[in-house]
């Protein structure tokens, strides 16, 4: 009897070891071409994780997850931040890895890495300039900078000092604008000379741009409450040398996620967990009423191609795969697609 008892115990131990979970099924092979489509840059798990890229084929709505790792046999790095493209190459900014991965959009294989950056954030490739502009925080308590990269040689050819925490970057009227998100300024840079032309005062904490005709619309989040000097968000409009600022109704309004409206002549932004539309030009005061989409997103941007769909990402708990919601031109929900962990940027091509 004693023997049986011991034998059963040992057998049970051995049996449960067999329950080791098997590996999950491999993901399907990536398609051969990434020439056109939608690239979602997923940040990945916050501490020590790795970013991923989700590719969406507009025509088939086929979704491929983690295309970088599948093509290259290694992860993208920590943290996936933003993406731009030039010709047949994609440039992916990886924030905490201090690098830009350059991939061939034919097969998404890495063709090189641009190293030596310091907390890079957003990237802009203006037209056929052959240059890429990357905003870098550099540190948490000093001026940021913009690195000018020669894409062909994959080297930094110039750095331009800007304000603190430069994030958003946009091209407007042949000039480059950088939002210094820890200040109330926007830095204007000459595209040809790569020098600072002027520093423009806007509202507190600018976080997004939309270029509309001769005007550049700048969304400013305002100082959040935890700074101890909470201020209301605002929308600045830069037209030539003129800057007008319209303020939100109360200090508790901290708008984000500025993007173009699908029907033009208006912008969309998010505040207090809903998306609102603001017709251009912006009036003296902004009164968010009647949200056009009654929910918030981690990232919101408009597909500039003929599709003209609005894409909003949902990062959920930032520890599980996120989701993408697509909206028609009339802002009715069209469909939803899966993404990776913390989808924070979308590049349309």
């Amino acid at each position, binding site marked *: 009897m004693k023997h049986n008892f011991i034998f059963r115990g040992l057998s049970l131990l051995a049996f449960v070891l067999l329950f080791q979970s098997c590996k999950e099924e491999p993901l399907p092979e990536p398609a051969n071409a990434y020439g056109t489509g939608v690239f979602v840059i997923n940040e990945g798990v916050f501490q020590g994780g*790795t970013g991923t890229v989700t590719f969406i084929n507009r025509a088939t709505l086929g979704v491929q997850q983690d295309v970088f790792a599948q093509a290259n046999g*290694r992860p993208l790095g920590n943290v996936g931040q933003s993406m731009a493209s030039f010709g047949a190459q994609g440039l992916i900014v990886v924030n905490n890895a201090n690098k830009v991965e350059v991939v061939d959009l034919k097969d998404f294989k890495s063709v090189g890495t641009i*190293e030596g950056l310091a907390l890079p954030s957003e990237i802009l490739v203006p037209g056929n300039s052959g240059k890429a502009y990357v905003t870098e925080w550099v540190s948490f308590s000093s001026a940021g900078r913009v690195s000018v990269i020669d894409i062909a040689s994959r080297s930094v050819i110039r750095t331009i000092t800007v304000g603190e925490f430069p994030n958003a970057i946009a091209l407007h009227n042949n000039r480059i604008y950088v939002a210094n998100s820890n200040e109330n300024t926007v830095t204007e840079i000459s595209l040809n000379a790569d020098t600072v032309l002027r520093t423009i005062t806007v509202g507190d904490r600018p976080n997004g741009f939309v270029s509309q005709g001769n005007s550049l619309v700048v969304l400013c989040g305002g100082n959040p409450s935890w700074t101890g000097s909470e201020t209301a968000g605002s929308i600045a409009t830069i037209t030539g040398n003129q800057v007008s600022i319209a303020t939100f109704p109360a200090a508790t309004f901290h708008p984000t996620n500025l993007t173009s409206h699908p029907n033009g002549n208006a912008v969309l932004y998010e505040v207090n967990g809903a998306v609102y539309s603001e017709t251009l030009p912006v009036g003296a005061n902004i009164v968010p009423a009647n949200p056009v989409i009654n929910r918030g997103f981690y990232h919101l941007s408009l597909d500039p191609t003929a599709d003209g769909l609005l894409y909003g990402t949902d990062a959920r708990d930032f520890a599980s*795969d996120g989701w993408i919601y697509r909206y028609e031109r009339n802002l009715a929900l069209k469909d939803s697609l899966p993404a990776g962990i913390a989808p924070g940027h979308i590049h349309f091509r």
Partner: protein
Amino acid sequence: MKKRSGFFVYALSCVLPVAAQQRDTTVQLAPVQVEAVLPPVQRQPALFTYTPDSLLLRALPAASVADWLQWQGAASLRSYGSAGLATVSVRGSGSQQNAVLWDGLSLLSPLNSTPDFNLLPLWLFSDVQLQTGSSSADFGSGAVGGALHLGQAIPQHSNLSAFVESRSFGDRSAGLAITHRAKNWWYSARGLYRQAENDFPFRNTAKFGAPKQLQQHAATRMGGFLQEAGWQPHPKHRLKLRWWYQAYDRQLPPSMTEALSTATQADSANRVFLSWDYAGQQRSLSYKAAYLKELNHYVDLRTNLDERHRFEAVLQELRLQQSFVGNHQASLLVQQALYRATSPNYDLGVQQQRLALVPGWRWQRARFSTQARLRAEWVDGQLVPVTPSLQHEQRLGNDYELHAAVARNYRLPTLNDLYWRPGGNVNLQPELGWSSELALHKKAQYKGHTFALRSGVFLTEVDNWIIWLPNAQLGFWSPRNVRRVRSWGFEQQLNWSKAIGQLQLRATADYAFVHTTNQQVGAGEASILGKQLIYVPRHQLRGRAFVQYQQHFVGWQFGYNGMRYTSTDNSNFLPGYEQSSLLFGSDIRFKKHLLRLNAGIHNLFNTQFQAVAWRPMPGRHFHINLTYHLHKI
């Protein structure tokens, strides 16, 4: 001889803070036991307890609690590498849901309640025990998954111990322990110094071609001592005073997916403990008080972050036990705590007061014991839900013991949860849950073989689980009580031993199956409903086998951690891994002198594994140490 002891006391106090003392029990091969003249205050009887194996202590005197838990027990270790944070999950708990107690008083930081088990060196303690299972009624907030007990034995003799150790990757350590025992007083001091480069090679699979590289920016340096003076003026009275100081500096290495790291962290702690015990025929009374002062200093040159997080705590405990006829015993526990904390992430310094009353009753007969407790706690004057517990132990025949327990448990929000700027949520409710467990303990002897098997099942449910989530309206992360988590599974402990002449054989195995899933989630979180929690392996096995012949031993240790999910929807995971180590030791004894030489090979099969995603761990490596004991000076 008295002069010599006095000299050591003097010398020790001169070389603080990095010198000091240790364990007279290391000359024994039995598991560490508390030796006390007075009966120790009874802990809540645990169904499953794990104490460091005496041969493991002997072979690895510089080991931390994290090192130990790799090889023994039912806790799943989440290690960020040799220089990094090491937390545990017990029965599916989060890293904040386990208590760490120093003779019954909580050492958890009120800021984050996340103990780092790398910061707890075994050398400083002679009584270390991991108890799995919920015990909030006894130990208060956070004792949901389990509790780690740290304590000191009262020395019975005047001894001296010292060791030096060298490990791979620039890991050097030295320790000193002295005890002086007089008729009615004693003094002990234990000190440890350890530094390591931790520059081990690994394959960086996050880089093109998976190149072999050396771990960067992972050096550590720690020193600490623990002194105790005790006085027993009367057989029924005992007074103890302790001072534990420790400093730990470390570079924080980058993950495999990061370019570099320039971050460093310095932790220092001053802990003073005073206790008085009285034990009469029918009544016992004890009073404990502790003052804790701790600093966490984080610096990152790259991001220009320089943050100091501090806290002070004054803890007091009064325990009264009264026996009655019929083997009944009533008890009353009163605990009081005052915390003060400062952090650049708080608007102002914050303060928290806690007061707890725990009446209890115990009925013990020859074949059974039943006890019940009820904890009522007030936090800043607000009563948190009352937590009762009921436990029963029953002998069945001569060889079987049945244990059963049911308890309510809770965990208070940390000060970071409440006051972090931005995001702190002062409206958070405590996590609340129920746990139940049933275990059977069997001992048997057969033809010289001795077996002990302990098998148990458990079920725990925690509601109001606190999780930090982005708040779309506020624009930043904030903690909320949104999830309910259920954990069930079973634990098994198997011990076997046999003596053949002077040859002693011994083997043990600890197995745990843990199924921990979200039962209720927040809006938009349907994809994580019913999914296993991240970094909670369903299967975990620890095994050890030792062969001892006269003054020599050989030991083999084995640890297996099953697959662990790394995303809450279970779409990403780390594969399971196993590792082994071989230990050797030999003694030379001459009168009162004992010289021990130990060596070991770790990660025997050079397994490349990650306990936490993209955090490399060392491959095969080695250690050797020499220990000297002078017994009964």
